[in-house]
């Protein structure tokens, strides 16, 4: 059985992947409990589409704070982080849902939703092609294949994801046995 996967290709091949990196388009939302409350109360729940760079050098997933706040999220804590300067700095910690489109060869397989703590960081003076980083706290739930020679990458193996804090939402509900046509 084929695993669901998110496939990315960065042009031009192969230097696009070198210069830009494995950037994934994701949908960022409030976590499920907040989303359900907002849907009941307002009939809508905010969502933004952003790009995140898969970064094996980042221990945690980080996203620009203005993007997180645009969803009405408020910090649930602060965490000390440190960059190459080695000077620790407290940054706000948010809780958010990150949804990634997944496919099985030839068809759409819905999305994998990753609900986790996310560090809010300041926006760079010069905007990047991405608004944050998918760190190793995300990668621990998936396989990540980097094909530098042909400028592609894949995030694979949703079954491994389902057992974690991530849940998969398939495009179609499974067919109940009573709904299946009988074959002669």
């Amino acid at each position, binding site marked *: 059985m084929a695993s669901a996967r998110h496939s990315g290709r960065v042009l031009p091949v192969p230097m696009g992947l070198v210069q830009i990196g494995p950037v994934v388009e994701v949908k960022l939302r409030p*976590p499920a*409990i*907040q989303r359900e*409350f907002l849907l009941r109360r307002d009939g809508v729940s905010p969502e933004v589409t952003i790009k995140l*760079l898969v*970064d094996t*050098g*980042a*221990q*945690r997933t*980080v996203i*620009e704070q203005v993007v997180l706040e645009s969803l*009405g*999220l*408020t*910090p*649930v*804590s*602060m*965490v*000390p*982080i*440190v*960059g*190459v*300067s080695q*000077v*620790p*700095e*407290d940054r*706000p910690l948010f*809780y958010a849902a990150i949804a990634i489109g997944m496919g099985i060869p030839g068809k759409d397989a819905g999305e994998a939703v990753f*609900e986790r*703590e996310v*560090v809010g*960081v*300041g*926006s*760079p*003076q010069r905007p*990047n092609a991405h608004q*944050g*980083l998918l*760190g190793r706290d995300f990668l621990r739930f998936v396989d990540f294949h980097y094909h530098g020679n042909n400028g592609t990458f894949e995030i694979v193996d949703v079954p491994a994801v389902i057992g974690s*804090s991530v849940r998969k939402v398939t495009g179609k509900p499974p067919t109940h046995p009573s709904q299946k046509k009988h074959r002669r």
Partner: protein
Amino acid sequence: MSLVSLVAQFRQSLPSLQSQYEGKWVIFRESGIVGAFSTFKEAYEEAYRRFDNDSSYIVEQIAPPQEPTPITAGVLFGLC
């Protein structure tokens, strides 16, 4: 109370909380701990149900103080 003050109060209280809540995720307000849970998700969901997004609480794990997280975002987002 600001987020920074609340986090500072929690860090100051941490040693006295460890024997009773070791390993638990707690909802912490100015008045102290208002709930203890096994996972962050459980604690967050209860806090949201009770206090919405009113910034009056934090969700923390009762554990030894964490080392600063190394992160390359320091470079990407001009933190360094």
